[in-house]
């Protein structure tokens, strides 16, 4: 039950993109088409869960025992960067079309504060293993939800008669703001 509440919290109430404002870069960059948005969600989910797990293990097994918890930023970044490299190599090998579509955004997941944010939040709230897993996976699903919603709206925005000064990124940002306002409605749900 608690895990379910944790998941709902991660997906809706404390949505990574729309409530915590993490991971805006891929959110705006890969949300032009629903197909690329889906691909990006899967990549982020994979990296997020793996990175959280590994960083959690390193924190619990290496950093805390040695009392060097303050090194977590550097250590976590190191781990995340390597994992993203690994993911990029894997995608290039197994799905060249997805690799072409995501292009520059794969390495951008490295500097994506969402991954580091989730890793750090797990550690800050001293979660145990299973809640950590659930939270990471749910957070990535929330990221994917926001991304897909946004991609759907952006596809429709293509045909809307927007004044030329507002077309493209400007309208997208306004929509993102409104979407974020909408998600505030979930406050107090769980």
């Amino acid at each position, binding site marked *: 039950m608690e895990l379910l509440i944790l998941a709902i919290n991660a997906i809706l109430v404390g949505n990574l993109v729309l409530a915590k404002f993490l991971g805006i870069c891929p959110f705006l960059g890969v949300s032009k088409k629903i197909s690329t948005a889906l691909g990006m969600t899967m990549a982020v989910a994979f990296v997020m869960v793996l990175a959280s797990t590994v960083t959690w293990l390193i924190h619990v097994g290496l950093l805390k025992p040695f009392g060097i918890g303050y090194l977590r930023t550097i250590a976590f970044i190191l781990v995340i960067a390597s994992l993203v490299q690994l993911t990029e*190599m894997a995608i290039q*090998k197994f799905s060249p079309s997805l690799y072409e579509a995501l292009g520059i955004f794969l390495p951008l997941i490295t500097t994506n504060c969402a991954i580091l944010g989730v890793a750090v939040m797990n550690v800050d709230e001293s979660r145990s293993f299973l809640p950590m897993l659930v939270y990471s996976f749910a957070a990535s699903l929330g990221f994917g939800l926001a991304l897909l919603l946004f991609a759907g709206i952006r596809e429709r925005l293509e045909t809307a008669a927007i004044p030329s000064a507002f077309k493209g990124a400007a309208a997208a940002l306004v929509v993102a703001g409104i979407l974020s306002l909408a998600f505030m409605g979930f406050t107090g749900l769980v």
Partner: protein
Amino acid sequence: MSLLVPILVLSGLGAAMGVGLAVAAKFLSVAEDPRVEALVDILPGANCGACGYPGCSGYAKGLVAGEDVTLCSPGGNATVKDIAAILGVEAVTVVEKVALVKCAGGRNVAPDRSLYVGPQTCRAAVLVGFGNKECRWGCIGLGDCAEVCEDDAVEFTADGLAYVVADACIACARCVKACPRDLIEMVPKDRKVHVLCSSHDPGKITKNVCQVGCIACKLCSRRDGKSFVIEDNNATVLYGEGSRDVPTAALICTPGAVWDANMYDQVTWLTDPEARVHLKEQQAEFKAAERAERAAKKKKAAEAKKAKEAAADKAEAEPAVGKPEKTEEAPDQEPEKGAE
């Protein structure tokens, strides 16, 4: 001591990640020909698709698979050389080309027949009653070609005629595909004589719909059949082997469908009515000169014939020894065909 642990831990972590990535790189490596990257570097990067591939990286991949090295028109001969160097093949010289709109029918010489209302693209305009121009082959002027040109090489005259500024054109051929009436052709950059008409209507119809359209009278192809050919009621310039810029072509084309860039620059030719008046004067002079030349030749031939006949008469009057010679007649000089 308190420093050693963090240093060791971080270094250990770093080393572990490094080794892990190195191992993964071996298993997850994707073989890519290093030449592909080198080729992408030297290709122009216009991603225009003139080569038939989707973008320069596509062409690079095709090249290492053995594709023709001369397909990149924006790159020209410099790129062909670079490609050949990387691939280790022989460099071939290509003819540099530019786009040319083969129509001179602005509204002033090729009038509209109705008013078009609707989406302002040439393709849409042609859908409505086969276009609003009297001439069903001519330039609509709504700019489908300019739309796709990324180098701003397409301009329009005040009478709605599109033309390509040769210096700005990179020969990517996007405009060729964009024109719904297929008016744009890639022509060699150094050629100066062109026929600016793509009408395949018989001459008697063309002259009613455009003042400067080709009526397929064949004067040009008769003058130089290697440089001009008449195909389906339309004169086409040949740009291949054995063809040349025929210097008198513009002077003999009565409607003025031939544009000689040596005589008039593009903008003047397409927009200045004075140029046409001037050309007509030149044409009249040229025709008169040719006629005079022919008349002189005929006179000379007639005189030569007379002289020979007189000599023959003389020979008859004073019989020579032996058999009487047969008088030889000088071959009749036929006036050059195509005088009209």
